[in-house]
């Protein structure tokens, strides 16, 4: 199906199943331990040996020599994979650093060996016996601030945008802000580590793994191992969190495949938690400079956002500046992303790449400017809304309700109780403040396929290689099929995450929900046609409801259509036309109240509210959990999450979950989410956008603005740890 004109009324609009708050249909499997996560296919692969990864002890340099003799002789050891034993491997374009290093080392904890043994314990014990002599390079670059001056403009979609005469307009602006902000490197820190069980049958490889993008994984492992894609099967039906960290083929899968080939039997690899931070990918740290000028009336006339990030040679950038491209009006603009070379582990996509951290800087700068203007921060944002993308005025937003999000939120949150003067509200020892931020996240759509089967017992089975990374894909896909075919949810089964199924959009970039359900919609249209044809009903007028099909005076049941064999519908949705002619983004507003301890500077969240406009909300229950999770993650990014770089050794020092501090339950108080009741016919047949990344955009800015409102301390270096807050607090009386 080609989606290129706005959707008319379709069966989804009935809203009998779609749009109803629905608990995840696979929930019982998960709560009873029956869902097979990557490392848990014990019944299917009973004889897997265990592989343990050895990570490089240096950040840059070469392996001089490797002594495997003690490890090989250790109890239970079957084989050891190294770059030498693996032979020549290719590297997929989506990977920056090699997944198996040596002799060259590109980053700390880059995998240099996999020790395969009979038991997990034996593999771990023997790993400690691998002796490696390194030649450490002394020209490693690890500090973004130092590498910044040599940074290069980013090309392609994030290339420079220059509109009007920024310098002139900024110089002339009567009110302006000029400030620099920094955000730290962040870890995905998903609960389930990278894990794979690999097994070979002849030259056919099966990977039971944890991955967001089945087809990319399949393609990339084939490329890396130089085998035909057709020889690879990837299974990843359950994913214990990804946040972008599992968009790619990673070390676990490649090493498990190599280990299994060398061992001659299946091999399971679960990445040790202490390797998860330096071996894998992370969200790049940024330096961001914002200059915004406005007239006395509060209208922005000049907006410059320049951002720097760093990566290994060939790696991508954190395009923080993209957050400012179409958020606010202003005729004179400069949007510039810069990329420096660093020898840290590979930077890559993490939940709302670019915007997640770009919006922190932008929304704090907006708060600073509102204060200088003497304007309310909500009113200031409302005034500067732009209904078009300033760089493409011909292109309007298909749905842009930023103003409504702000206004609805302000009312619901009690924004009018905020004191405009910072540091003036108290609750005992606590300084209380409120902050606001607007949110924007593009809603891309990706080609997505599905197959839907109707069996003789009236059951509907959906098959697609779409993944559920905890987001609720199983449920919204079931809801889509149920709505389209006029059956209850209990009649629908959903099978995901198998490369034998039609290729879907996968989970990423908040495109998954809208794209994958649209693919299922397309396949259901095909199935409806096939069913109607079988029953001799005109597909154009057939209605599907209550397990029955009717039209043209005829009535039949679905089971009748499948009585003499399964009926199948398969299709792939492709997007174009209207999707390219409009700008498609989800919008939101975040409101946050914090308390800051006036003695210690500790920041504690008190209340959070997000208002989201994201087209049709397919399942308010799972959409809400996406948004509150994102709010938590976004707050963590400005409160405590920070991969600390040691500039001497070139590694992230705090590489475990005790020291990389994600927020815990005690940090997360009352959270509320309001979804505006929207539909976007220009988006897809589902008329939906995404919310999983929208929820993280802006949150950090709202928290930082609340801290300022509480204390009068304006922090621009994130996270806002106690040491920084304290430095700004007045001496005690």
């Amino acid at each position, binding site marked *: 199906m080609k989606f290129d004109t706005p959707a008319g009324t379709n069966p989804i609009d009935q809203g009998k199943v779609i749009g109803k708050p629905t608990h995840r249909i696979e929930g019982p499997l998960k709560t009873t331990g029956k869902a097979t996560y990557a490392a848990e296919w014990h019944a299917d692969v009973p004889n897997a040996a265990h592989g343990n990864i050895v990570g490089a002890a240096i950040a840059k340099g070469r392996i001089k020599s490797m002594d495997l003799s003690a490890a090989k002789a250790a109890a239970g050891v079957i084989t050891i994979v190294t770059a030498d034993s693996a032979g020549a491997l290719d590297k997929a374009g989506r990977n920056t650093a090699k997944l198996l290093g040596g002799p060259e080392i590109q980053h700390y904890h880059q995998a240099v060996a996999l020790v395969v043994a009979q038991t997990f314990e034996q593999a771990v014990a023997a790993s400690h016996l691998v002796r490696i002599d390194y030649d450490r390079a002394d020209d490693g670059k690890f500090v973004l601030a130092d590498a910044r001056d040599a940074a290069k403009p980013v090309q392609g979609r994030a290339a420079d945008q220059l509109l009007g005469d920024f310098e002139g307009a900024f110089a002339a602006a009567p009110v302006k802000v000029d400030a620099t902000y920094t955000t730290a490197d962040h870890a995905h820190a998903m609960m389930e580590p990278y894990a794979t069980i690999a097994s070979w049958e002849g030259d056919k490889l099966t990977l039971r793994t944890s991955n967001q993008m089945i087809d990319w994984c399949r393609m990339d492992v084939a490329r890396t191992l130089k085998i035909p894609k057709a020889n690879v099967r990837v299974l990843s039906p359950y994913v214990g969190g990804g946040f972008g960290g599992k968009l790619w083929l990673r070390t676990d899968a490649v090493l498990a495949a190599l280990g299994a080939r060398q061992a001659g039997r299946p091999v399971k690899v679960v990445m040790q938690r202490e390797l998860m931070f330096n071996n894998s990918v992370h969200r790049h740290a940024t330096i961001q400079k914002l200059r915004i000028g406005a007239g006395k009336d509060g209208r922005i006339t000049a907006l410059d956002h320049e951002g720097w990030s760093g990566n290994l040679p060939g790696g991508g950038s954190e395009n923080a500046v993209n957050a400012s491209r179409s958020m606010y009006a202003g005729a004179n603009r400069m949007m510039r992303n810069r990329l420096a070379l660093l020898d840290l582990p590979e930077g890559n996509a993490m939940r709302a790449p670019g915007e997640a951290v770009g919006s922190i800087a932008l929304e704090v700068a907006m708060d600073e400017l509102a204060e200088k203007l003497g304007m309310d921060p909500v009113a200031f944002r409302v005034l500067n809304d732009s209904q078009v993308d300033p760089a493409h005025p011909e292109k309007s937003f298909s749905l842009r309700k930023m103003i409504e999000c702000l206004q609805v939120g302000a009312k619901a949150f009690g924004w009018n109780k905020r004191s405009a003067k910072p540091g003036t509200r108290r609750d005992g020892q606590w300084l209380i403040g409120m902050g606001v931020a607007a949110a924007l996240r593009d809603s891309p759509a990706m080609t997505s396929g599905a197959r839907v089967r109707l069996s003789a017992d009236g059951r509907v089975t959906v098959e697609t290689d779409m993944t559920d990374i905890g987001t609720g894909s199983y449920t919204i896909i079931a809801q889509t099929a149920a709505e389209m075919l006029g059956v209850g949810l209990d009649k629908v089964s959903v099978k995901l995450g198998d490369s034998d199924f039609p290729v879907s959009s996968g989970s990423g970039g908040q495109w998954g929900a809208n794209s994958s359900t649209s693919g299922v919609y397309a396949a259901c249209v095909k199935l409806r046609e096939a069913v109607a044809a079988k029953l001799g009903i005109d597909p154009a007028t057939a209605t599907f409801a209550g397990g029955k099909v009717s039209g043209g005076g005829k009535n039949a049941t679905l089971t009748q259509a499948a009585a003499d064999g399964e009926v199948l519908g398969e299709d792939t949705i492709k997007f174009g036309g209207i999707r390219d002619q409009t700008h498609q983004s989800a919008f939101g507003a975040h409101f946050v109240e914090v308390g800051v301890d006036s*003695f210690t500077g*500790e920041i504690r969240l008190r209340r959070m509210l997000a208002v989201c406009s994201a087209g049709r909300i397919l399942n308010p229950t799972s959409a809400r959990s996406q948004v509150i999770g994102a709010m938590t993650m976004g707050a963590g990014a400005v409160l405590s999450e920070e991969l600390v770089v040691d500039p001497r050794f070139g590694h992230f*020092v705090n590489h475990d979950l005790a*020291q990389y501090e994600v927020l*815990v339950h005690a940090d997360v108080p009352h959270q509320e989410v309001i979804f505006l009741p929207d539909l976007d016919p220009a988006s897809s047949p589902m008329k939906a956008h995404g919310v999983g990344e929208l929820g993280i955009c802006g949150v950090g800015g709202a928290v930082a603005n609340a801290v300022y409102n509480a204390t009068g301390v304006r922090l621009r270096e994130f996270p806002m740890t106690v*040491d920084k807050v304290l*430095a700004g607090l007045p001496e005690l009386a």
Partner: protein
Amino acid sequence: MKPFTYERAKSPADAVVALARNPGAKLIAGGTNLLDHMKLEIVTPQHLIDVNGTGLDTIENTPDGGLRIGAMVRNTALAAHPRVKKDYAVLSRAIVAGASGQLRNKATTAGNLMQRTRCPYFYDTNMPCNKRDPGSGCSAQGGFSRNHAAVGGGANCICFFPSDMSNAMNVLDATVEVMKPDGTMRTIPIADFHLLPGDELPVKEFALAPGEMITAVTLPKPPGGKHFYRKVRNRASYAFALVSVAAVIQPDGTGNITLGGVGTKPWRSAAGDAAVPKGAKAVAAALFANPTATDQNQYKLKLAERTIAAVLAAAKG
């Protein structure tokens, strides 16, 4: 983890005999600290002596009105004990401010006193660390030291001592009861139990001699006053203290204060206690006469002073 042999001791006497028989062996209690270190091969004992069955899991009143806490009493049980909650509330509060419910269910009194540093370089065996590998250097100095000690650091090590419980025991003037290798007993005042790293290698940590085992901790009769344990951290739970204040403040404004997080051991002095009536500035000045702070953890001195001020303000309120 290196393979090891394992035995269960049935009494403290059993345990010290086993220790003597197996030089380099380790006692294992809750295992919440030791096992992590063994997995990462930070320590590699070849023999473990499990002391959970030594019968040291009771809390008893002492004749002088104090309390004797067996070495194997779980942190959860200790924090919940009625007399601890009533008479030694600082101890109860310190314990529940630490770790998580699951960990506290396993963690023991002795194990908590003996827990080792949370320095990230200590945990990464690729990194130089004098405490783990004497003579290899101290990576924290010149590296990431924001969470490290701002007082009491030595030339070879500057890590802070992480135990919350120990700070409370310290402010309560507890005594550690130890069985020696020959089965006889000795006691160590808590103030002397945790050691400054000093300037020599290997880095000193505990006053326990090789082959000795902790059997109990005794608390003197209740000190009265108001009890506080204020733990400062970036996230609200499941994090070690940046600074903590264990305090017992009397109605007349006198009191005792032990600081955690800021020193290489629980940080208290007679001069600090004497300054309590004069306020936080005076206490901090007395306690921080010789700071060893790095640029990154200098803030802890100010943070500690302000946290003391918060506690003293609360004591008045």
